[in-house]
Structure formats: structure tokens, C-alpha cells
């Protein structure tokens, strides 16, 4: 990568740190959570020092992730408000997926897909935290029917979340020039102009 002084700043260092804290938490949570979810993933508990440690750590990591996301949420909430343009974008997502993004409507800092993801993760995390507390036997006792419901919700949301994040990661890999935004904070002007032309205009004034 060649740094260009004219590259545009997409994320501040604080934002990036915040994001990666959440990201690491997510990976740990997914690994330990999957271990409890299906026997095929059980050996992943070894990454945490065994099943008991995985069980002990998972909820605490979850809390860290929830707090970390809360901070992200407060930072980016406004930017993720849905607009009619987003709706149009979403309705034409097929073209985007097919790689024909030339005729997509012009986007601000986030496109409709990203916004969807943002809200999906927010909802999932909220539900995960609530249902996770229901399951946290070391500190809480709830009526067993509620716990059972909690387990189903927790599992469901976790799966949705994992799928969502996979798409999120893939999208970052697929759309070249994206990763550096989270690693280094900057994107090229071309990248910005191509994918987020409205935002490009806002920051460049052109």
C-alpha cells in the first residue's frame, strides 16, 4: 500500500480501537459459544483452557463486547439512519452483488447494506445480552421456562450475528481498499468516490 497524503480519513484511531475490541470479543465469543452449541465445535474450548474456562469467560467477554459495541453504536448511530436512497440501494442490491456497482445510487458514509448490518448487530447484541444474563447461572437464577427461552434466543441471535459478521468481513475483503479503513483509518479518494460518492463530496468539498 502506498500512502498518499490526499487519502481521506475514514476512521479515527479511537474508532478503530473500539471496532477491533469488539471484533476480538466477537471472535472469542463465537469460538467459545459455538463450542457449547454443537459437539463438533467442542474442541474449541481448548483455546480457552478447557470447557470450564470457556464457560466462565464467555459471559464476561460478552459483557465487554456489549459495552464496546454500545460505544460504537453511540458513535455511528446518526450516520446509520436509514434514508430513501438507502432503500433504493437495497432494492438494487443484486446489481451490487453481481459486481455491477456503476449504476448504484450515490451513497453517503454508509450504504444501505452497511446500515442494515449495523442495526442487525445492534438488535442481536441486545438480545444476546438479555438472554445471556438469563443463562448466567453463576450469578443469576431465573424461572426455568425463561431460561429455556433465553437459551433459544441466545442461540438464534448468535447464529444470526455470526452470519452477519461473516458477511461483514467478507464484504470488507471483497471490496478492495476497504480493509485499510479499519487498519489505518484512511481510504483512497478513488475508493471513496466509487463506493461512497456523497461522503466523498462531503469530505472533499467537490
Amino acid at each position: 500500500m502506498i500512502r498518499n497524503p490526499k487519502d481521506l480519513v475514514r476512521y479515527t484511531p479511537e474508532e478503530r480501537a473500539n471496532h477491533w475490541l469488539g471484533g476480538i470479543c466477537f471472535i472469542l465469543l463465537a469460538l467459545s459459544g459455538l463450542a457449547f452449541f454443537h459437539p463438533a465445535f467442542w474442541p474449541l474450548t481448548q483455546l480457552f483452557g478447557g470447557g470450564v474456562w470457556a464457560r466462565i469467560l464467555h459471559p464476561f467477554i460478552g459483557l465487554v463486547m456489549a459495552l464496546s459495541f454500545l460505544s460504537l453504536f453511540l458513535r455511528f448511530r446518526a450516520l446509520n439512519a436509514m434514508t430513501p436512497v438507502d432503500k433504493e440501494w437495497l432494492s438494487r442490491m443484486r446489481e451490487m452483488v453481481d459486481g455491477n456497482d456503476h449504476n448504484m445510487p450515490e451513497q453517503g458514509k454508509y450504504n444501505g447494506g452497511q446500515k442494515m448490518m449495523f442495526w442487525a448487530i445492534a438488535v442481536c447484541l441486545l438480545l444476546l445480552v438479555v438472554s445471556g444474563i438469563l443463562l448466567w447461572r453463576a450469578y443469576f437464577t431465573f424461572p426455568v421456562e425463561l431460561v429455556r427461552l433465553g437459551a433459544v434466543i441466545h442461540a438464534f441471535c448468535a447464529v444470526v450475528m455470526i452470519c452477519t459478521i461473516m458477511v461483514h468481513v467478507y464484504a470488507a475483503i471483497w471490496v478492495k481498499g476497504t480493509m485499510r479503513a479499519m487498519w489505518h483509518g484512511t481510504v483512497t479518494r478513488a475508493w471513496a468516490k466509487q463506493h461512497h460518492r456523497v461522503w466523498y463530496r462531503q469530505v472533499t468539498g467537490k
Partner: protein
Amino acid sequence: MALQSLDIARSSATTTPPPSVRQTTEVAKLIDVSTCIGCKACQAACMEWNDIREEIGTCSGVYDNPTNLTENSWTVMRFAEVEEAGKLEWLIRKDGCMHCADPGCLKACPAPGAILQYANGIVDFQEEYCIGCGYCVTGCPFNIPRISQKDGKAYKCTLCSDRVAVGQAPACIKSCPTGALQFGSKEQMRDYAEHRVVDLKERGFKEAGIYDPQGVGGTHVMYVLHHADRPQLYNGLPADPGISPLVHLWKGFAKPLATVAMAAVALGSLYHYVTKGPNEVSKELEDELEKEDAL
């Protein structure tokens, strides 16, 4: 020196079948509530044999002590004073693990080998492998497993698997002074129970019957009840217990479905990448900006 394990029929969080060629007789405990005097010998014998000691509690206005199952009390007597049409009955039920044929605890347990069902029907916790998640509690339709505050492990009645493994009856059964507790093959126990039901019917308990709920595939702990039509009278014995549909959903088809879904997303992405290639910034745009810069 470890003893020979009992043959295993099912193991928690294990997707492959255990060795299952050997044929083992199913055992069962029968609790004949109609001859139980609630003396708690079974509770004492259980604590003594299993080297567990409950804390000394207080009297809360009933004979039930300890007042509930705990990690140190794997069986408790539950007393109910039932008065109908001026006739008082003191219904006393020994509560503890039912050793279900289809154990909800085992179904819910995520730790491989932490819950076993032996081929003789005993459902046993292996605390060594228990991670203390408490999912067994969620899976159990009888509210039996308890998580220890001390070590975070789940405990419940083992049906004295250590005694049964060497051909002895469980400690509670052996101690029972009136013979309200009996132990033998499940078939023997059913035969004996039927005999008791006949006697009870002759004594005027028209609805006497056997409690061997099919919702959990039958149990290896059965009751003879004078009022088999109303098991709830016996301190809330569930009338038609079964593993909760939520647990079925969670630990049943959701597991493979979700795994497939996640795999599909991953593989779909891969496929997309391979077929569509990366989404690069277009050459024209880059050139355009270079031109601008050059100006």
C-alpha cells in the same frame, strides 16, 4: 484402582454411537408412595453413602428438611397434607432424579461425556467433565440437577451407580425400612408395581396406578401412586412431563440447521469471491483523480 465402567448407551454432546453391542438389563427403582412413611432414611443413607453433607438448616413450618434438592441433597421427601371430603391424607413423596429413558439433561448438555446414560438406564453425571453451564437444569422436566456454589458442577442422584456397578442396590433402597423403595430390573419393578396397584384398588383407591411417564420415554424411577390420576397432589409431580419444546428446538434441529446456515454463508462468500472476483476501484476513477492531481 478404577472399576469397570458400566456399558454406556448415550453420552452427552457426542454425535457418534457408543459401543452398543452388549445387552444389559434395564434396572429401575420403584417408589411405592402408599407404603412410604416419610422417615427420610433414604435421605440419610444417600448423604452417608455418597459422602455429601447438607448444611444444617432451620424448620420452616413443615417436615421437609432439607427444604429442597441441593448439590448435597440428592433426594428429599416432600410432604403434602391433602384433605378431601373430610378425609385427610398425608402424601409423602421421595423426590430425586427419575433417570428418564429420554433424559432432557443429557440432551441439553454441551460437554462431551459429562452426562451419561448407561445401558442399564441409569443417567449419571460425570462431574469431572461438567463445565457448570447449567444447561442440564434447563433440559430437565423434573427440576432435579443442582449446580454447586462451591465448585460450579452439576450434581444429582447417581442411582448409586457405584453400588449398582458391583451388583448392589442403591443406598436409599437398601435402607428403606418399610420397603416402599424397591430395586430390580425394570420389568420386575413393573410387575411388582402392578401387584401393589391391585392391593390399593382393593383398599378403595380406585385411581391407583403406576407413574412411568411416557413423555420422557418412561423412567427408571417409577412411583406407585394412590391417585395416579392426579400426580400433582404429590407436591407438584408433573402430570405429563416431557422435555420442553424450547429445549427440543434449541438442542434438536436448530443445531444442524444453524451449523449449515453458517457454513452456507461462509461457502457462499467463497463462491462469490471465486465467481465474481474482487470489487476493485475502477481504473477510470483512479485515472480521473490522477488527472485532477496533475492539474
